[in-house]
């Protein structure tokens, strides 16, 4: 007969990493520290990218044309986190897929800075297709979190 007794044993992994960004991502991240959202452009297909890309994955050529955008974006999709998970933000929080300036692709960031009474009202406050603009952090270090969040423009 199989035993009806069983045990669980707990363990975890705390691991640290450091990643080299390379020149394209470095330039893009450093500009965030100066409250600028840059785009770069593939000179072959003409597509712009925010976040910048080191090379165009379609044309398979390096990218070296850069422009500064006005930072405004369009919400392409979003979700609202209503449940608490370990190591994830406290709910409610809105994760947006945001297409900035002339970019052909989007970036992921929070959408916040709009008034609401109850958490369940949030879906009515944000629409796909709405314009958003960045709200900058006081202290910046060349990181995506130099943008605190995007707010309705």
């Amino acid at each position, binding site marked *: 007969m199989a035993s009806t007794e069983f045990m669980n044993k707990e363990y975890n992994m705390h691991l640290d990493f450091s990643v080299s960004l390379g020149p394209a991502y470095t330039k893009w991240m450093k500009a965030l520290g100066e409250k600028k959202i840059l785009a770069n452009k593939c000179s072959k297909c003409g597509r712009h990218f925010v976040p910048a890309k080191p090379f165009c994955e379609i044309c398979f050529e390096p990218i070296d044309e850069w422009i500064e955008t006005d930072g405004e974006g369009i919400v*392409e*999709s979003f979700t609202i986190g209503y*449940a608490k*998970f370990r190591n*994830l933000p406290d709910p409610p929080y809105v994760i947006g897929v945001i297409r900035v300036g002339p970019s052909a*692709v989007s970036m*992921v960031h929070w959408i916040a800075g709009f008034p609401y009474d109850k958490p369940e009202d949030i879906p009515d406050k944000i629409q796909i297709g709405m314009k958003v603009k960045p709200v900058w952090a006081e202290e910046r270090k060349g990181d995506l979190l130099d943008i605190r969040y995007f707010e309705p423009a």
Partner: protein
Amino acid sequence: MKHRVAIISVGNTEYTSLRRETRSKAELAFAAIKEALDEVRISIEDIDACVFTSVDGFEGNVRPARVLESFGQAHNVPLIDVNTGGSAGGSGVKEAVHLISAGIYELVLVYGSPTFNEVVDNQQVLNTASPPIFEKPFGLGAAHMGSLYGARYMREYNLTARELAQVAAKNHKAAVSNPFAHIRAGYTTEEVLNSPMVAWPLHLYEICPVSSGAVAMLFASEEKAKELCDTPVWVEAMSSIADTFLSGYKVYKDFENLKILAQRIYKEVGIKKPREELDVVEIFNPFAPFELLAYEALGFCEEGQGVNLMKEGATEIDGDIPCNPSGGVLCTNSGISASVTRHAEVALQLMGKAEGRQVKSPERGLAHSWGGNDGQFHTVAILSR
């Protein structure tokens, strides 16, 4: 394919929740594999190779295959480790198919690992699949990734919350009759709508559970299949597709790359009207919207018409294109086991062995898997009797 490839057996364990799980990972692997071997009366030393599929790092162990002894290690059986995120089960099946169709091996075991059966909080672990510098800090778990598709798709085609809940209820109803489903409560549309909102627009019952349980499948050459099995299921075609890693690069209103893959594979096997030419389908649907996105990408209906196809009853077990008669991933998600299971379910249907959930006399079926960060990969297999 150069040589014909058959599925000759499936080994399934019961599925439960992590909190109720009393079996060890090694025991789950042993049980599923033993059943697959016993079904065709062979021993572990008879297999030529084993393909292990999971997601590296999700099991609290970066190489789980190495610590289990269920894959013929005692008999020096080659062990091949395949990982393409959630679609790893499809990719593992594809690997087995290639090895046999190329004439390299005659008997290959595919094992779908219960990827999540150590996690304390699954969304915490799934968040580690997000691009670490660009996306992980914003708190994307798998539920949120599924919701990004749901939000955009609902907006694009004016799908209501009730209609989305109906998709979930369809799967919950089907799972009641599947002895290998984890959640068999048969939640109704009302119960889905009244379940807690986890990641808007998805309620708890529109999101897969975290399950524990495992599946094994045996693949064979034509000669071996005819020797060992009375009901072989033939692999007509199997293929996969890949695109970008970043969630921000996706558009979310459709499964664009699945559409390309489906067209490629239909052309290969000469399918012109998939809704008429397929008898049973298993879609990788951990989130309710995925089922509608897949109906459309797989060409069962026009874009935006998935909900009407469902409302007609076409995709029910007795409809003309039954989809997920098992209840799908939405009711049972044991990690990569779930993407192998899509193939196992279609194979059992074609063998006439889908106890409780059998579609009437299917001749040809399709198995789909989805995975990688927010759908970087899809796989499609066409199987027939």
